[in-house]
């Protein structure tokens, strides 16, 4: 365990997020059990008001998840030199086997919170709380993931032991005894490039079709999910290399640093925005049949598709910029 301020802040925030989640989930459970839209009882009114509280908690949750994701990577990066062989966040995350699971859970929970808010937005537009059950089921599904994140993060941080001089005989012989992968496995570049651009093209086409004709929601949602995974793999495989102008530095985190103009932030922001809105389209699809939402959902889906298309498109532009215009050449 390292008493680093960043780690303490993450501990605190996870704890608060978990408490909020538990509270929201228990309210959600109550709503699922006692909900009766036709009743004019004070309980029903109280439950309806509680939905307002939970929406507000979920919005904060989304913001907090995003911030804690940022702080997590930032902290991992800033403590990397405490571990022999670690050069940046990649090294810190591989110090024990809970680093990457924590990161993955953080990303997953961020996406789930985003999807919940989309569902909530659609629900608020209907006159009779049409999605109330779906909404609170999703919340109950989210809760265990968020709690797991807190636990895994806790295990990860308590398992961190810095390599420092402990007594008069230097500890330096510990060096090399632990193998830290300071670089992520390199995925072959050329096939990855083809995969990335064809996947992006397919997603954009599916999105355009949805936007123009209102067809193919599920295909677009699935494509968005696939694009997310492939985009991350591409950043590691080749996109980042062009920003670093180094043929072998496959790091998804260093592009977040000042040295590279913080270009990672717009990249990741656009990518997650595109993915969340894209997945949201598919999430809303089964509820088109609800009578009070018959007109509303297609309109929301169209808007989501537009945002998603826009995000993916700009993302591709930024990612391709150095590939097209920089003097750096991978084959060089």
């Amino acid at each position, binding site marked *: 365990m390292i008493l680093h301020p960043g780690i303490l802040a993450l501990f605190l925030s996870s704890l608060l997020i978990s408490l909020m989640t538990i509270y929201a989930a228990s309210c959600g459970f109550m709503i699922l059990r006692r909900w009766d839209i036709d009743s*004019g009882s004070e309980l029903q009114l109280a439950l309806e008001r509680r939905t307002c509280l939970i929406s507000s908690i979920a919005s904060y949750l989304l913001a907090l998840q995003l911030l804690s994701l940022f702080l997590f990577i930032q902290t991992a990066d800033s403590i990397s030199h405490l571990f022999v062989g670690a050069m940046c966040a990649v090294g810190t995350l591989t110090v024990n086997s809970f680093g990457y699971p924590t990161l993955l859970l953080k990303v997953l929970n961020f996406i789930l919170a985003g999807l919940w808010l989309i569902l909530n937005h659609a629900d608020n537009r209907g006159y009779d709380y049409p999605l109330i059950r779906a909404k609170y089921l999703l919340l109950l599904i989210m809760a265990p993931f968020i709690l797991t994140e807190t636990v895994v993060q806790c295990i990860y941080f308590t398992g961190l032991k810095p390599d420092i001089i402990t007594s008069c005989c230097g500890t330096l012989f510990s060096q090399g005894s632990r193998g830290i992968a300071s670089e992520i496995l390199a995925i072959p570049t050329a096939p990855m490039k083809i995969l990335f651009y064809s996947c992006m093209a397919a997603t954009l086409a599916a999105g355009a079709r949805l936007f123009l004709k209102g067809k193919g929601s599920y295909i677009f949602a699935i494509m968005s999910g696939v694009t997310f995974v492939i985009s991350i793999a591409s950043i590691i495989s080749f996109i980042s290399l062009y920003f670093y102008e180094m043929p072998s530095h496959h790091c998804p985190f260093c592009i977040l640093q000042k040295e590279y103009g913080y270009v990672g932030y717009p990249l990741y922001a656009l990518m997650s925005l595109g993915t969340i809105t894209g997945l949201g389209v598919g999430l809303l699809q089964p509820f088109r049949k609800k009578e009070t939402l018959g007109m509303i959902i297609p309109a929301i889906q169209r808007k989501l598709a537009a945002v998603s298309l826009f995000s993916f498109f700009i993302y591709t532009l930024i990612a391709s910029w150095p590939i097209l215009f920089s003097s750096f050449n991978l084959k060089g």
Partner: protein
Amino acid sequence: MISARGISKVFNHGLPNEFAALHPVSLDVSLHETTVLKGPSGSGKTTLLGLMACMARPTSGRIFLNEREITSLPERFLTEIRRSTFGFIFQQFNLIKGLSALENVMIPAYPTGEKYSILRRRALESLEMFNLGQRADARIEWLSGGEAQRVAIARALINNPAIIIADEPTSHLDSIQSREFIDIMTDLKAKGRTIILASHDPIVYDSGLADRVVEMRDGRIANEIKSS
């Protein structure tokens, strides 16, 4: 038209201090008509007024606003209907202290997102209509009772509602100011607004303003008098 079908209101349901403010009551109010709910305090007229104006939900029964059932609507839709359909004048005026008369008039329109300049102009026009143009920037606590009442009326009208609701509007006014109030209401009525008043002040229910006086007692409608 607002029609209330067997609406009742019970406070603190199921608790030892349970209290039935309104026993099942049915009442139709047609548009362009002025209705006065008359009765002693505690007779349930304020509760009935609040229910019909979408301020609260009845414990049982249904309310229809122009054929649309509004009882089971979620609060936010109810609020929207209330904001666009009803204008309120309260017993204690309920103006916000520390703000100017103009700001008080503008408050109900804030959530609609109307452009500030347009909203301000409308609010000023409304104040001028009640001879308060010079007092627009004056703080609420500097206004006299009559002026405050007129600011409250201007506020009730800012969202251009079809129906005006007034709860004991004259209880804090002297006789001259009360008559002034009746004059304003008569004027609004002539312009085609529906008015519903709750009052136990003879100046109100004996004035020529009311098309209809509904007398209430102990949470029930006791008697109904149609004038004209």
